[in-house]
């Protein structure tokens, strides 16, 4: 069996997100090897330039929606455009990233289309004619096998999990002009987007994360983590203890009531490893812990542990990274 699949290729600030290639790669398991069955949709200004990239990862057609409504992300116009495109082209499955954008509008799209939604999955495939997937639940303590029970299915893929693979396809651009329901859109409109302080990838998309805990002592001390992060292109995170003590901003928090992250390398500095923190980072591929307390629970989850004062160890870490990457 094979499905006709539409991938929502997310663009933020004019840049195509790396999740677009990840979603196209994941969607290959649903199309039964039929290249023509895989399409992408791109929204916003200047999206045409991304078509070649989407073609490289397997999109046969790229539907382009250009409208003032979709220049900046707003849920309702995205939902109107995609639901109309799904009806017109008769897609069986819509795949998108489990990013803040995807997690915002896919549930609403699911209710509009009456289509089952499998959220933040790490694998997706077909079992006969049924879309099935694996998704972590209970903060990664358990993996659930989930299945759609509706003719149409929506899927969001956890960022940074699927390794993107090139698979050249047409990448043919097709303009799509939805008929927007302005009254519905006017109920909730974007006023402004306030820029973040950091140019670094978000924690949820970062390949390397260096996090600090309560032992950082104050916000100024985070500078040593930022300096070290600079060398390896890492994003800096924090534990809830550090955030609640006012050492770091809430958007840096990893763990329960913060972000769930999946980097290749997670370096925990002065973090004891409470169950709430582990909830957000246990699926990291490699975990390094630096802590003065050798009984800290984080060492049980770490691939590599260093029992030492982070203020001594982190500057050395920075120097060693410089040596190895220089």
């Amino acid at each position, binding site marked *: 069996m094979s499905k006709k699949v539409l991938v929502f290729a997310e663009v933020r600030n004019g840049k195509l997100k790396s999740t677009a290639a990840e979603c196209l790669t994941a969607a290959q398991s649903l199309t039964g090897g039929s290249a023509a069955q895989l399409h992408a949709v791109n929204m916003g200004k200047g999206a045409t330039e991304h078509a070649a990239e989407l073609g490289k990862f397997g999109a046969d057609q790229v539907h382009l929606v250009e409208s003032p409504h979709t220049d900046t992300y707003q849920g309702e116009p995205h939902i109107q455009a995609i639901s109309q495109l799904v009806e017109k082209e008769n897609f069986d499955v819509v795949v998108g990233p489990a990013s803040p954008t995807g997690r915002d509008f896919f549930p609403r799209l699911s209710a509009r289309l009456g289509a089952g939604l499998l959220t933040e999955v790490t694998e997706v495939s077909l079992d006969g004619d049924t879309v099935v997937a694996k998704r972590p639940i209970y903060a990664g303590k358990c993996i659930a*096998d989930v299945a759609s029970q509706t003719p149409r299915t929506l899927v969001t893929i956890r960022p940074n999990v699927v390794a993107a693979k090139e698979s050249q396809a047409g990448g043919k651009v097709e303009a799509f002009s939805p008929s927007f329901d302005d009254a519905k859109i006017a109920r909730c409109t974007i006023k402004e987007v306030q820029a973040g302080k950091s140019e670094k990838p978000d924690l949820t998309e970062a390949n390397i994360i260096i996090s600090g805990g309560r032992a950082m002592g104050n916000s100024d001390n985070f500078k040593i983590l930022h300096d070290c992060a600079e060398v390896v292109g890492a994003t800096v995170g924090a534990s809830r203890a550090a955030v609640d003590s006012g050492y770091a901003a809430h958007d840096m928090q990893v763990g329960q009531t*913060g972000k769930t992250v999946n980097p290749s390398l997670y370096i925990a500095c002065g973090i004891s490893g409470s169950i709430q923190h582990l909830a957000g980072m246990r699926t990291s591929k490699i975990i390094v812990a630096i802590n003065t307390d050798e009984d800290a629970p984080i060492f049980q989850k770490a691939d590599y542990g260093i*029992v030492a004062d982070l203020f001594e*160890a982190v500057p050395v870490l920075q120097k060693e990274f410089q040596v190895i990457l220089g």
Partner: protein
Amino acid sequence: MKILVFIKHVPDTETRIKLADGGKALDESDFKYMVNPYDEFAIEEAIQSKPKVGADEVIVASLGPSRCQEAIRKGLAMGADRGVWINTEGVSDDSLDSLLVAKALASVAKEEDAQIIFAGQKAIDDDCGHVAPMVAELIDAAHVQVVTKVEMGDDKSHAVVHREVEGGMTEVYTAKFPVVLGAHKSLNEPRFPSLPGIMKAKKKPLREVKFADLGVGEASTKINGYALPPEKAPGKVFKGQPVDQMVKEVVGLLRSEAKVI
């Protein structure tokens, strides 16, 4: 005007997950439950919003078996005025999915004619974050998810809402009522119920609705089974050596063994 809050009773963070029935189910016998942490921000924001918009009451609604009345009572103890319990006793968990739950909660929202609805942006057990946007769609209302700040408009018919997105960016929306808002951390500091609050909560009205009577249909997704993630092999811990040497060794291993640098 009514403010409605959706809350969920979830297994607490410390819960150990054990499989039952060969992975077809979870062994819930040792589960201890609590109010979903994000829902506490929702309850607090609802209580604080009540005087700002001149609302008549704050209603806390939850769907689940008998135990979820404890969660509702906690919301009442914090200061909500009354509760609605959608009773799912006798309904198998496997036959419920988020779209069905949203349909059931949407029916309460319609019946109560709520203008402002708060919910946690997601529950920490299934980690879906579906219910708030789904309910908004089902009752034809606006929604904003992952809300970190709400300013109620003076006209009592809209709110300016901040939503946290990636990279520390914030999207600011103007949302007309009716609106469904998914509460995130940093929205407020949820209060602890006071002793008089707990006593009063026992007497506040709690209306029961039978899930089966709502006729919300069939689930759109299902869970076929569960597995535990593979156990990690014990790591290598370095101690008692000069810091320079230990760090150098670990960085070497990150390159040669783990191949992540």
